Protein backbone atom coordinates (compact mmCIF):
# COMPACT_ATOMS: atom_id res chain seq x y z
CA UNK A 1 0.00 0.00 0.00
CA UNK A 2 1.47 3.28 -1.04
CA UNK A 3 0.53 6.12 1.22
CA UNK A 4 0.22 9.35 -0.66
CA UNK A 5 2.05 12.31 0.76
CA UNK A 6 0.05 15.40 0.02
CA UNK A 7 1.63 18.22 1.98
CA UNK A 8 0.11 21.03 -0.04
CA UNK A 9 -3.49 20.22 0.74
CA UNK A 10 -5.14 22.37 3.31
CA UNK A 11 -7.95 20.54 5.02
CA UNK A 12 -8.03 16.84 4.18
CA UNK A 13 -5.51 14.23 5.18
CA UNK A 14 -5.47 11.26 2.88
CA UNK A 15 -3.85 7.90 2.85
CA UNK A 16 -4.29 5.13 0.37
CA UNK A 17 -7.43 3.15 1.01
CA UNK A 18 -6.26 -0.29 0.00
CA UNK A 19 -6.09 -1.43 3.60
CA UNK A 20 -9.81 -0.91 3.92
CA UNK A 21 -10.96 -2.28 0.65
CA UNK A 22 -12.14 -5.82 0.16
CA UNK A 23 -12.65 -6.67 3.80
CA UNK A 24 -9.15 -6.27 5.12
CA UNK A 25 -9.93 -3.53 7.58
CA UNK A 26 -7.79 -5.22 10.20
CA UNK A 27 -4.71 -3.82 8.46
CA UNK A 28 -5.53 -0.41 9.86
CA UNK A 29 -5.03 -1.80 13.36
CA UNK A 30 -1.67 -3.53 13.35
CA UNK A 31 -1.94 -4.20 17.08
CA UNK A 32 -5.12 -6.23 16.75
CA UNK A 33 -4.35 -9.88 16.26
CA UNK A 34 -7.78 -11.00 15.16
CA UNK A 35 -11.03 -9.43 14.06
CA UNK A 36 -13.52 -9.08 16.89
CA UNK A 37 -16.56 -11.26 16.36
CA UNK A 38 -20.10 -9.83 16.27
CA UNK A 39 -20.47 -11.36 19.72
CA UNK A 40 -17.46 -9.36 20.99
CA UNK A 41 -18.89 -6.18 19.49
CA UNK A 42 -22.29 -6.81 21.04
CA UNK A 43 -20.55 -7.27 24.38
CA UNK A 44 -18.66 -3.99 23.89
CA UNK A 45 -21.93 -2.25 23.12
CA UNK A 46 -23.44 -3.58 26.35
CA UNK A 47 -20.40 -2.25 28.18
CA UNK A 48 -20.76 1.12 26.44
CA UNK A 49 -24.42 1.20 27.45
CA UNK A 50 -23.26 0.67 31.03
CA UNK A 51 -20.96 3.70 30.70
CA UNK A 52 -17.68 1.84 30.06
CA UNK A 53 -15.49 4.35 28.23
CA UNK A 54 -12.76 1.74 27.55
CA UNK A 55 -15.21 -0.27 25.44
CA UNK A 56 -16.21 2.97 23.72
CA UNK A 57 -12.56 3.65 22.85
CA UNK A 58 -12.20 0.19 21.33
CA UNK A 59 -15.12 0.93 19.04
CA UNK A 60 -13.70 4.35 18.16
CA UNK A 61 -10.36 2.74 17.27
CA UNK A 62 -12.13 0.23 15.10
CA UNK A 63 -14.63 2.41 13.27
CA UNK A 64 -13.69 6.11 13.34
CA UNK A 65 -11.43 6.02 10.29
CA UNK A 66 -13.89 3.99 8.28
CA UNK A 67 -16.80 6.29 9.13
CA UNK A 68 -14.81 9.41 8.24
CA UNK A 69 -13.71 7.86 4.95
CA UNK A 70 -17.25 6.78 4.10
CA UNK A 71 -18.73 10.19 4.88
CA UNK A 72 -16.03 11.83 2.79
CA UNK A 73 -16.84 9.56 -0.15
CA UNK A 74 -20.46 10.63 0.05
CA UNK A 75 -20.08 14.30 0.91
CA UNK A 76 -16.74 15.25 -0.68
CA UNK A 77 -16.20 17.68 2.15
CA UNK A 78 -13.67 16.95 4.88
CA UNK A 79 -15.20 19.21 7.53
CA UNK A 80 -18.68 17.83 7.00
CA UNK A 81 -17.35 14.27 6.99
CA UNK A 82 -15.74 14.87 10.37
CA UNK A 83 -18.96 16.38 11.72
CA UNK A 84 -20.84 13.29 10.57
CA UNK A 85 -18.31 11.03 12.26
CA UNK A 86 -18.55 12.97 15.52
CA UNK A 87 -22.35 12.83 15.46
CA UNK A 88 -22.24 9.12 14.70
CA UNK A 89 -20.06 8.40 17.71
CA UNK A 90 -22.17 10.63 19.90
CA UNK A 91 -25.17 8.55 18.89
CA UNK A 92 -23.17 5.40 19.61
CA UNK A 93 -22.28 6.63 23.10
CA UNK A 94 -25.72 7.92 23.99
CA UNK A 95 -27.77 5.31 22.18
CA UNK A 96 -25.82 2.15 22.93
CA UNK A 97 -28.64 0.88 25.14
CA UNK A 98 -30.95 0.94 22.13
CA UNK A 99 -28.65 -1.19 19.98
CA UNK A 100 -30.17 -4.55 19.08
CA UNK A 101 -27.48 -7.15 18.35
CA UNK A 102 -29.72 -8.58 15.60
CA UNK A 103 -28.08 -6.03 13.28
CA UNK A 104 -24.33 -6.07 12.73
CA UNK A 105 -22.68 -3.21 14.56
CA UNK A 106 -20.95 -2.07 11.37
CA UNK A 107 -24.30 -1.89 9.58
CA UNK A 108 -25.86 -0.02 12.50
CA UNK A 109 -23.05 2.55 12.63
CA UNK A 110 -22.73 3.04 8.89
CA UNK A 111 -26.48 3.47 8.66
CA UNK A 112 -26.38 6.26 11.22
CA UNK A 113 -23.58 7.91 9.25
CA UNK A 114 -25.34 7.31 5.94
CA UNK A 115 -28.58 8.91 7.14
CA UNK A 116 -26.71 11.98 8.30
CA UNK A 117 -24.92 12.23 4.96
CA UNK A 118 -28.22 11.98 3.13
CA UNK A 119 -29.67 14.75 5.30
CA UNK A 120 -26.70 16.96 4.54
CA UNK A 121 -26.87 16.25 0.81
CA UNK A 122 -30.57 17.10 0.89
CA UNK A 123 -29.84 20.38 2.64
CA UNK A 124 -27.22 21.15 0.00
CA UNK A 125 -29.73 20.52 -2.76
CA UNK A 126 -32.18 22.81 -0.99
CA UNK A 127 -29.47 25.45 -0.59
CA UNK A 128 -28.95 25.69 -4.35
CA UNK A 129 -26.27 25.27 -6.98
CA UNK A 130 -23.43 26.89 -5.03
CA UNK A 131 -23.57 24.18 -2.41
CA UNK A 132 -23.79 21.48 -5.07
CA UNK A 133 -20.70 22.79 -6.76
CA UNK A 134 -18.69 21.89 -3.69
CA UNK A 135 -19.78 18.30 -4.08
CA UNK A 136 -18.96 17.94 -7.74
CA UNK A 137 -15.65 19.74 -7.52
CA UNK A 138 -14.53 18.13 -4.31
CA UNK A 139 -12.05 19.94 -2.11
CA UNK A 140 -8.90 18.71 -3.75
CA UNK A 141 -6.77 21.00 -5.85
CA UNK A 142 -5.90 19.64 -9.24
CA UNK A 143 -2.86 19.89 -11.42
CA UNK A 144 -0.13 19.51 -8.82
CA UNK A 145 0.93 15.96 -9.46
CA UNK A 146 -0.18 13.29 -11.83
CA UNK A 147 -1.36 11.08 -9.01
CA UNK A 148 -3.33 13.91 -7.47
CA UNK A 149 -4.91 14.61 -10.82
CA UNK A 150 -5.82 10.97 -11.16
CA UNK A 151 -7.31 10.91 -7.68
CA UNK A 152 -9.20 14.09 -8.46
CA UNK A 153 -10.60 12.61 -11.68
CA UNK A 154 -11.80 9.58 -9.79
CA UNK A 155 -13.32 11.71 -7.05
CA UNK A 156 -15.17 13.80 -9.59
CA UNK A 157 -16.46 10.67 -11.32
CA UNK A 158 -17.62 9.30 -7.96
CA UNK A 159 -19.20 12.63 -7.02
CA UNK A 160 -21.20 12.63 -10.22
CA UNK A 161 -22.78 9.29 -9.45
CA UNK A 162 -26.31 9.36 -8.02
CA UNK A 163 -26.23 9.36 -4.25
CA UNK A 164 -27.23 5.74 -3.65
CA UNK A 165 -24.89 4.40 -6.31
CA UNK A 166 -22.06 6.35 -4.73
CA UNK A 167 -22.95 4.95 -1.33
CA UNK A 168 -23.08 1.42 -2.73
CA UNK A 169 -19.61 1.75 -4.28
CA UNK A 170 -18.23 3.30 -1.10
CA UNK A 171 -19.55 0.47 1.04
CA UNK A 172 -18.75 -2.46 -1.24
CA UNK A 173 -15.52 -1.34 -2.86
CA UNK A 174 -13.93 0.96 -0.31
CA UNK A 175 -15.25 -0.51 2.94
CA UNK A 176 -15.08 -4.09 1.73
CA UNK A 177 -18.60 -4.89 2.95
CA UNK A 178 -20.47 -7.87 1.66
CA UNK A 179 -23.47 -7.04 -0.48
CA UNK A 180 -25.80 -8.25 2.28
CA UNK A 181 -24.15 -5.94 4.79
CA UNK A 182 -24.17 -2.97 2.43
CA UNK A 183 -27.84 -3.66 1.67
CA UNK A 184 -28.55 -3.45 5.41
CA UNK A 185 -26.90 -0.04 5.56
CA UNK A 186 -28.84 1.26 2.58
CA UNK A 187 -32.05 -0.38 3.76
CA UNK A 188 -32.65 -2.23 0.53
CA UNK A 189 -32.58 -5.79 -0.75
CA UNK A 190 -29.44 -7.53 -1.95
CA UNK A 191 -30.69 -7.52 -5.55
CA UNK A 192 -31.28 -3.78 -5.43
CA UNK A 193 -27.81 -3.32 -4.00
CA UNK A 194 -26.31 -5.45 -6.77
CA UNK A 195 -28.09 -3.30 -9.28
CA UNK A 196 -26.79 -0.10 -7.67
CA UNK A 197 -23.21 -1.39 -7.73
CA UNK A 198 -23.56 -2.63 -11.28
CA UNK A 199 -24.92 0.66 -12.57
CA UNK A 200 -22.30 2.64 -10.66
CA UNK A 201 -19.46 0.54 -12.05
CA UNK A 202 -20.84 0.86 -15.58
CA UNK A 203 -20.99 4.64 -15.27
CA UNK A 204 -17.50 4.79 -13.79
CA UNK A 205 -16.04 2.56 -16.50
CA UNK A 206 -17.50 4.86 -19.07
CA UNK A 207 -16.45 8.07 -17.32
CA UNK A 208 -12.90 6.87 -16.72
CA UNK A 209 -12.41 4.95 -19.95
CA UNK A 210 -9.78 7.41 -21.18
CA UNK A 211 -7.63 6.36 -18.23
CA UNK A 212 -7.15 2.87 -19.61
CA UNK A 213 -3.54 1.76 -19.30
CA UNK A 214 -3.28 1.28 -23.07
CA UNK A 215 -4.92 4.63 -23.90
CA UNK A 216 -2.66 7.41 -25.22
Amino acid at each position, binding site marked *: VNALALPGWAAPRYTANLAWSRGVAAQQEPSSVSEPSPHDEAQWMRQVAAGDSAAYRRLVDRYL*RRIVAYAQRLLHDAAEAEDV*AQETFLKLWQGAAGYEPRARLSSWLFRIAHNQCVDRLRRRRDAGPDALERQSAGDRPSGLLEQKQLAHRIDVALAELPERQRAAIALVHYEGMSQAEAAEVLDCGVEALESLVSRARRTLRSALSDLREDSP
Partner: protein
Amino acid sequence: MNHDDEPPTGPLLDDAALDRLLDASPALEPSAQLMRRVAELPLTHPQRAPLRELWPFASALRLVLSGALLLALGAASALWSAGTAQADDALDELSGLMLGSDLDLEEAP
Protein backbone atom coordinates in the same frame (compact mmCIF):
# COMPACT_ATOMS: atom_id res chain seq x y z
CA MET B 1 -22.46 -8.94 -11.28
CA ASN B 2 -24.29 -8.64 -14.57
CA HIS B 3 -22.85 -6.29 -17.15
CA ASP B 4 -24.67 -7.77 -20.13
CA ASP B 5 -26.77 -4.67 -20.69
CA GLU B 6 -23.86 -2.28 -21.14
CA PRO B 7 -24.10 0.05 -24.10
CA PRO B 8 -21.62 -0.86 -26.85
CA THR B 9 -19.74 2.44 -26.80
CA GLY B 10 -16.26 1.22 -27.58
CA PRO B 11 -13.62 -0.25 -25.31
CA LEU B 12 -14.22 0.39 -21.63
CA LEU B 13 -12.21 -0.42 -18.57
CA ASP B 14 -12.36 -3.98 -17.40
CA ASP B 15 -13.31 -4.74 -13.81
CA ALA B 16 -9.74 -5.16 -12.58
CA ALA B 17 -8.63 -1.89 -14.18
CA LEU B 18 -11.58 -0.05 -12.65
CA ASP B 19 -10.73 -1.51 -9.23
CA ARG B 20 -7.15 -0.32 -9.60
CA LEU B 21 -8.31 3.16 -10.57
CA LEU B 22 -10.75 3.38 -7.68
CA ASP B 23 -7.96 2.38 -5.33
CA ALA B 24 -5.99 5.39 -6.51
CA SER B 25 -8.48 7.63 -4.74
CA PRO B 26 -7.20 7.81 -1.19
CA ALA B 27 -9.35 7.83 1.92
CA LEU B 28 -9.61 10.77 4.26
CA GLU B 29 -7.76 10.36 7.55
CA PRO B 30 -9.46 11.76 10.65
CA SER B 31 -7.72 14.83 12.05
CA ALA B 32 -6.11 14.80 15.49
CA GLN B 33 -8.72 17.35 16.53
CA LEU B 34 -11.56 15.04 15.54
CA MET B 35 -9.96 12.09 17.32
CA ARG B 36 -9.69 14.17 20.48
CA ARG B 37 -13.27 15.42 20.22
CA VAL B 38 -14.60 11.91 19.69
CA ALA B 39 -12.48 10.49 22.52
CA GLU B 40 -13.82 13.16 24.87
CA LEU B 41 -17.47 12.54 24.07
CA PRO B 42 -18.02 10.35 27.16
CA LEU B 43 -16.78 13.24 29.33
CA THR B 44 -18.63 16.02 27.57
CA HIS B 45 -21.90 14.16 26.95
CA PRO B 46 -23.21 12.06 29.83
CA GLN B 47 -25.31 9.11 28.79
CA ARG B 48 -29.07 9.47 28.92
CA ALA B 49 -30.95 6.77 30.80
CA PRO B 50 -32.92 4.79 28.26
CA LEU B 51 -36.69 5.01 28.60
CA ARG B 52 -37.02 1.34 29.39
CA GLU B 53 -34.85 1.79 32.49
CA LEU B 54 -37.28 4.38 33.79
CA TRP B 55 -40.30 2.24 32.89
CA PRO B 56 -40.59 -0.61 35.35
CA PHE B 57 -42.74 -2.83 33.13
CA ALA B 58 -40.62 -4.69 30.65
CA SER B 59 -43.57 -6.20 28.83
CA ALA B 60 -47.34 -5.85 28.49
CA LEU B 61 -47.85 -9.13 30.37
CA ARG B 62 -45.87 -7.83 33.29
CA LEU B 63 -47.93 -4.64 33.22
CA VAL B 64 -51.20 -6.65 33.35
CA LEU B 65 -49.88 -8.89 36.11
CA SER B 66 -48.76 -5.87 38.10
CA GLY B 67 -52.23 -4.31 37.73
CA ALA B 68 -53.91 -7.55 38.79
CA LEU B 69 -51.63 -7.78 41.81
CA LEU B 70 -52.49 -4.20 42.79
CA LEU B 71 -56.24 -4.93 42.47
CA ALA B 72 -55.89 -8.07 44.57
CA LEU B 73 -53.98 -6.16 47.24
CA GLY B 74 -56.62 -3.43 47.23
CA ALA B 75 -59.45 -5.94 47.59
CA ALA B 76 -57.68 -7.79 50.39
CA SER B 77 -57.01 -4.53 52.16
CA ALA B 78 -60.68 -3.47 51.84
CA LEU B 79 -61.92 -6.81 53.21
CA TRP B 80 -59.48 -6.64 56.08
CA SER B 81 -60.53 -3.08 56.95
CA ALA B 82 -64.21 -4.04 56.92
CA GLY B 83 -63.53 -6.97 59.26
CA THR B 84 -61.44 -4.77 61.53
CA ALA B 85 -64.18 -2.15 61.68
CA GLN B 86 -66.77 -4.76 62.74
CA ALA B 87 -64.41 -6.11 65.41
CA ASP B 88 -63.78 -2.57 66.65
CA ASP B 89 -67.54 -1.96 67.02
CA ALA B 90 -67.93 -5.16 69.01
CA LEU B 91 -64.98 -4.23 71.22
CA ASP B 92 -66.41 -0.75 71.82
CA GLU B 93 -69.71 -2.21 72.89
CA LEU B 94 -68.03 -4.72 75.16
CA SER B 95 -65.73 -2.18 76.75
CA GLY B 96 -68.64 0.22 77.25
CA LEU B 97 -70.55 -2.44 79.04
CA MET B 98 -67.55 -3.40 81.08
CA LEU B 99 -66.62 0.16 81.98
CA GLY B 100 -70.21 0.96 82.83
CA SER B 101 -70.49 -2.02 85.22
CA ASP B 102 -67.10 -1.18 86.77
CA LEU B 103 -68.30 2.35 87.58
CA ASP B 104 -71.46 0.97 89.05
CA LEU B 105 -69.45 -1.29 91.23
CA GLU B 106 -67.16 1.57 92.39
CA GLU B 107 -70.10 3.78 93.27
CA ALA B 108 -71.82 1.06 95.24
CA PRO B 109 -71.55 1.32 99.00
